[in-house]
């Protein structure tokens, strides 16, 4: 078990093995009464955000490249409707080169270019 503390939240991470053999983590965000379950499956991470009554409020999905760097991040409502979608184009060291935000209809909302640090 790993405990992290920031200014206004206490994070408890419990790591274990799921019935599918994948690693998963349970995060409890104390100050916001949220509970998060994160599933790690090969090159994908899925996270499920629950309210204090354990009702699913949002779900997210992250796709990693072969080096383990994030290349896409999607979030969905509890009804499985896409809320937004981010695409990352990375430098070889994993730093973001381009970040593009899309809305639920796939319209490009914004794009940012970052110089290599």
């Amino acid at each position, binding site marked *: 078990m790993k405990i*992290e503390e920031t200014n206004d939240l206490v994070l408890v991470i419990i790591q274990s093995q799921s019935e599918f053999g994948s690693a998963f983590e349970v*995060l409890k965000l104390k100050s916001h009464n949220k509970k998060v379950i994160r599933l790690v499956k090969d090159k994908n991470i899925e*996270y499920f955000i629950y309210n204090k009554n354990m009702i699913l409020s949002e779900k997210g999905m992250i796709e990693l490249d072969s080096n383990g760097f*994030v290349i896409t991040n999607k979030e969905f409502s509890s009804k499985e409707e896409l809320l937004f979608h981010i695409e990352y184009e990375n430098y070889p060291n994993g730093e973001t080169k381009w970040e593009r935000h899309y809305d639920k209809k796939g319209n*490009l*909302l914004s794009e940012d270019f970052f110089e290599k640090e």
Partner: protein
Amino acid sequence: MFFCKLLQLFEKACESGFDGFVKWIRSLLSKEKKHLDEALDEIEQISLKNYSKTEISTLLLQNNINKFYNSSDLDAIYKKALQLDMRLDDLIGFVKTGNIKEIKSVELLKQMDNYINIVLQRGYPFGFRNLKEFEQFCDILKSELSSIALSTNDIRIQGSSVRSKNPNDIDIAIFLKDKDLDIFINKTRELRKEKSIISGNPKFLKNYERRLSLGKINSFDFPKIKNDYFDLLKNNMFKDKKVQISVIIENSSFDVSPYLKLKK
């Protein structure tokens, strides 16, 4: 240069005699901060005609960053700006943008004309059909921003929609003062931190910090707005254009002229 401008305002105030001078001093020393802000805004908006040609030429050369324009281009740009009675900040902004976007001088002259004679005259940027549509857009925008406690005192339309008749996007810059800015940075930073922790995607916080260090917080980093972020503004009104909404840090590279300030 600031004191030079201040001196010019002083001379202007004295044109109305001692009463004018006293009134001006009172407005500058007023305990109400907004008076000082307005006085400084007035100072900033002094026309190009108050500077010597040498002063302006030096500034233009400094801002011809990529040396995209030759001396004859710069001369034509300067003459056009004088003819249009342009503000110095706007002239510098046009030269800077022209360099970065490699806008040919002939096109830049047209854009300068568009800004002064069309956008500022009619009071709304390109991309809108009429003033009524623009005002409707502003009302929705201000209401959305107020719902997340963002000050709407200084909102500017920047970028191609104040320069070109067929803009690619509508760039909206929100400027916050002192404490308001600090509060908003703290709030958005905490949100990004939490988002990074919850999702396991460190880029939420890392890229937020990188954007902030460059001088902006984009609408994606804002607290959630109940009306589905800015969907109404971003998509329903402009099907063919992007609407970029950001908080811009004063004097950063994103604090650019020319712009159209929204009425309070």
